[in-house]
């Protein structure tokens, strides 16, 4: 059984850039805070589409659409519940994560 998560993306056509971690941007975290370092190379996703839409309302700049990810349970992609309500961090290669997108919803 797959796990479903929701990721905010920039447009209706997801691409590799939509699955870029902060680390992949090439900027140093400039922090020794373990909470910062823990998620620096991961991606923010949500348990429900409503949670993702709530973030878009706070930051319209973040993206206009939401990708639905179906992540197989036996997949090496790592998922962890982190931070605020419904927030999860996903660690995996952008090219792999892109293949898990099953649909795209308006934000």
């Amino acid at each position, binding site marked *: 059984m797959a796990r479903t998560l929701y*990721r*905010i*993306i*920039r447009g209706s056509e997801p691409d590799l850039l*939509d699955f*870029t*971690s*902060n680390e*992949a*941007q090439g*900027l*140093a*975290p*400039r*922090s020794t*805070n373990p*909470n*910062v370092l823990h*998620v620096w190379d*991961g*991606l*923010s996703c949500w*348990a*429900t589409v*409503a*949670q993702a839409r*709530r*973030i878009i*309302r*706070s*930051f319209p*700049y*973040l*993206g206009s659409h939401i990708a639905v990810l179906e992540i197989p349970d036996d997949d090496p992609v790592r998922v962890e519940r*982190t*931070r*605020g*309500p*419904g*927030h999860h*961090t996903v660690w995996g290669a952008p090219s792999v994560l892109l293949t898990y997108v099953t649909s795209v919803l308006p934000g």
Partner: protein
Amino acid sequence: MHYELWALNTGNLICDYDTEAEALAMAQNLLAGGWSPDHLGLRLEFDEGDEGDDAQLPPSLYGASLSARLMDAVRQAAVANVPELAAMTPSGRNVDQGIASTPGVVGGSACIVKTRIPVWLLEQMRRLGMADETLLDAYPSLRAEDLVNAWRYVSLHRDEIDREIAENEEAEAA
């Protein structure tokens, strides 16, 4: 309730913090490292279950509004580190939480603490029909609790505020 700092260019949460000051300190650190303020976002999360209450969503800060809040934080830190500035706030007048009047600053009018935003000006705009949300957008350095403090001050010092509004309107008309 906690403050979330976001990387808007990647869509990833950087970290969450118990206080705005901690989040702003991290933002300043990232800006010093080359991040653009357009790529950083600060929001308040009320932790009210998985869905949350959209009616409670406060204005989020990014770009120019975040830069203004960061500048305000820097100024506040500067004031806190200079005893002479702190001593300028007369303890006798500072009868309301979050409100202070300082001789020589905005004519000694009661202001939101550590800012130059006078309470009478906020009240004048409220009387003109401006909603709290609009005021917070117009003054990114203000927090919702600042307005709560301002409205409390107005209710306790209505004569003083009425007089200052009238004096300002006369000065503008002259």
